[in-house]
């Protein structure tokens, strides 16, 4: 198993380094022949984001923008992009991770003068689009953290921990999904499914109630909208360990969309194709559950209702459960949180609701 772990990590690394070298060489040749080099960057404008029914996610269309070093209004951002590729190359080679904020500060050592972090963040997305690789593959991570808990053996690939193994059920607070975990090899598990849950509070309850053992599951806290590292982990658990993924969210339109993003990505990341779990299943809390389980509710706000109407225009919400639940939300104009089950006792959600929903997921 150790061998596989090593080879998988080094393959990802090799892919990135190859890509970076390819671009670097092309630009080197241009300069060497007295030509101004340029990058072709797939356009991320609204008009170029289309839904791919086959991939079941948003992807970028064919239009691309040329960023030329000859054009003086683009020269600065061209150089920033070059620097970032250079920086990512070093990170990947040295297997060091950095945060978005680190990138912003590191740039200052090279007089690349980013105006602010949002400018450097944008350049990072540009590089993702050029390489069609997520920034995590280049060892650049967001600050946000989410957690995982369950019987999962991993083997680290980060420097200093190579080959070291860990079981993710030893610490009840869960394990932060950070760079070392994202890049670790998934060695083995006894679990039969992954439960992604929107809220940290419920995650703790699930651990306490030993949902991992009772339902042979790995529990993932998405911390609201799932960060990309979390989505990458979910995808890997599904793809590499063949675990089905079910998703539990609050019973509102935002919860429904958290589930959708895990399943089919976000428009923001339409340039990336390794972040979705198309087979993931949203099992609740549905709008229809509110009546079925007689849950305490809160009235929907105007912005909740507007969000419903917006999502109805999204092709992914044009069929099945997604379409139906939006309609119910709009009909009852009320919403319920996961904690609403506490009305019937703190363990009601794990004792009664969860088993029914797992049963349901299996039948789908």
């Amino acid at each position, binding site marked *: 198993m150790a061998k596989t772990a090593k080879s998988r990590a080094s393959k990802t690394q090799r892919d990135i380094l190859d890509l970076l070298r390819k671009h670097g*060489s092309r630009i*080197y*040749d241009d*300069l060497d022949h007295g030509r101004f*080099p340029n990058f072709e960057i797939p356009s991320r404008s609204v008009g170029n984001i289309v839904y791919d029914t086959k991939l079941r996610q948003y992807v970028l269309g064919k239009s691309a923008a040329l960023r030329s*070093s000859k054009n003086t209004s683009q020269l*600065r951002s*061209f*150089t920033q992009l070059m620097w970032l*590729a250079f920086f990512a190359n070093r990170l990947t080679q040295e297997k060091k991770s950095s945060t978005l904020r680190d990138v912003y500060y590191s740039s200052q050592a090279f007089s690349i003068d980013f105006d602010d972090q949002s400018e450097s963040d944008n350049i990072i997305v540009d590089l993702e689009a050029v390489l069609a690789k997520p920034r995590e593959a280049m060892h650049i991570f967001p600050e946000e953290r989410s957690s995982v808990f369950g019987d999962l053996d991993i083997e680290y690939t980060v420097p200093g921990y190579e080959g070291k193994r860990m079981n993710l059920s030893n610490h009840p607070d869960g394990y932060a999904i950070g760079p070392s975990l994202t890049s670790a090899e998934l060695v083995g598990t006894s679990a039969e499914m992954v439960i992604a849950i929107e809220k940290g509070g419920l995650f703790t309850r699930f651990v306490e109630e030993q949902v991992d053992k009772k339902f042979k599951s790995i529990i993932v806290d998405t911390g609201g909208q799932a960060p990309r590292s979390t989505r990458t982990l979910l995808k890997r658990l599904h793809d590499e360990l063949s675990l089905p993924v079910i998703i539990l969210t609050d019973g509102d339109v935002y919860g429904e969309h958290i589930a959708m993003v895990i399943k089919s990505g976000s428009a923001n990341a339409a340039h990336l194709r390794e972040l979705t779990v198309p087979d993931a299943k949203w099992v609740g809390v549905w709008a229809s559950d509110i009546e079925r389980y007689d849950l305490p509710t809160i009235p929907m706000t105007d912005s909740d209702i507007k969000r419903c109407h917006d999502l109805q225009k999204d092709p992914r919400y044009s069929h099945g459960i997604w379409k139906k639940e939006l309609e119910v939300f709009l009909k009852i104009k009320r919403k319920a949180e996961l904690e609403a089950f506490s009305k019937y006792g703190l363990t009601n959600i794990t004792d009664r609701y969860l088993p029914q929903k797992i049963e349901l997921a299996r039948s789908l």
Partner: protein
Amino acid sequence: MAAERFNQISPSEFFYRNRDLAGFSNPTRSLYTAVREFVENSLDACDQRGILPNVRLVIQAEDPEAKDPRTYILTVHDNGPGVDVEHVPLAFGTVLYGSKFGLKQARGMFGLGATMAILYGQITTNKPVHVSSSTDGKTKDVFEILLDIQKNKPVILKHTTSKARRRGLSVSITLEGDYSKAGSKIRDYVYQTSLITPYATISFEDPKGETFRYDRILKSMPPPPTVINPHPHGVDVETIRRMILESRRDLVSTGNGAADRLIRALGLKSSDAGYDVVARRVAQRWKRLSPSARLPAALATVLKCSPRDLPEMTIHDIDVADDTISYHDGMAGASKTAQLDRGQPYYPYLEEVAAGEPLQSFLTARFQRVGPRTAERFAKFAEFKPERRIGTLDNRELVRLSDSLQAYGEFLAPDPSCLAPLGQEPLRRGMAKFFEPDFLSVVMRNASAYSGFPFVVEMGIAYGGGIQTRGIKAYRFANRIPLLYDEGSDVVLKVINDMDWNRYKVKGEAPLVIATHICSTRIPYKTVGKENVADRPEIERELRLGLQFLARKLSSYMSRRGKAEAAKKRANLYAKYIPLVSQFCTELAGRKAEPKYATMLKAEDGGG
């Protein structure tokens, strides 16, 4: 008429009572105006004789401890032709004596201003004017003169002759002034005057002991303007009346020689040529007198004076209808009237003189652009006989003549030879020296005319470089005089403000200087202060066309400059970023040596 008394006053007295009209309203204004009048007189005198002017202006406080307004001694020295010794008392001791009645471009008009300044000095300090004049550079005549205001006569307090070191004129007056307030105006005036007179060296020593000196930039000067007759469109009824009087006066003016010849012809000695004996002999010998002797003979008889005194008499008019002759008696210092006697033999002769020239020759001799045929055609147009004697026109006919001169459309355009623009090259040199700009362009428009007065507009535009002011700064000149005040209502400012400068790539606070120079035999000033020019459509048009021409030149300079700046900026950006790109891609590509991009940057640098 019966109950009221009308008193005649002398011109001196008139100006004394109305001195603010001539710019002597308060100590500040008066000091400034006095400086202008003397400096301009000096420059005019040099211009007319083609002498490169050296003008030295000195203002000293009589008592340095006193507070403003206080007494100042204002002195202007020049290297001009000087004033003939016999003309000095009249030139500096009477009002309205001047040599500028002809029609040509000059800074001052009629030489009035300098005597006004002298008059002002005298009434505020009761001190005489000091004049030192040398016409040959060997001897100089030094005068101290006071002005008798009531009689308009000079009172010579002192006259000495001594050795001179150089030719020229110095005039020094003592006057009340306020330099603390007038100083900046006077310094501006000297500065701008030297800009528009780049062939002059002008220095100014101010009361604080500071010297402002502007050396000449050019060693050659524009040709002096010629004196020419007026254009028919440029005269009114009053001017025609004066021209008729002047034509008659020419006929009745007697030189010194004429009186002597008459005395000899009458067989007398000069010493005993008294009125009585002369009158008696004239009556006896009239028929035998030569034509040249008849005029002094007739005049001496009518004016009841000796022929010796005739040079002192100035004939104003011979009125045949009233049988009177009006004249100025220089010895008495008063205007007088004498009766003509129809019975005397001289009467038909004076009647003939009074009738004056025929219309046709009057027009051809006294107007520009009028030949015998034009005069004949005009006479037909105006319904006069060409041979009609000009002195016999009554008032209604004079008005008809004047109106017809205005209305007749066949006269040629005014002759600009009486104008003396500075010229493009001197203007360019002057502006280049004064502003050291990055860009400079000058233009002189062709001569044009308004209401019969020829004019020429020349102007220059300067941008950037040593220009410290922001926004458009206009220097206005008229007949080589800087116009410093009342900018707001001036036609030049109107034209500048009407321009859409954005179209010429001039943005808000551009360091821009515009100098305009209007030359004309008569500048249409809006006010007596001579500080702003009225917006005559013809002048406005020439200014506008000239300015548009210059603005187009500026515009193409600005776009060249813009392109050069953009290319420089681009080259700088490449020089900053491409080496970084090179460094990054070298490491990315896993290469050791950096790519050869140097020639690429060089091409961009030079290619922009």
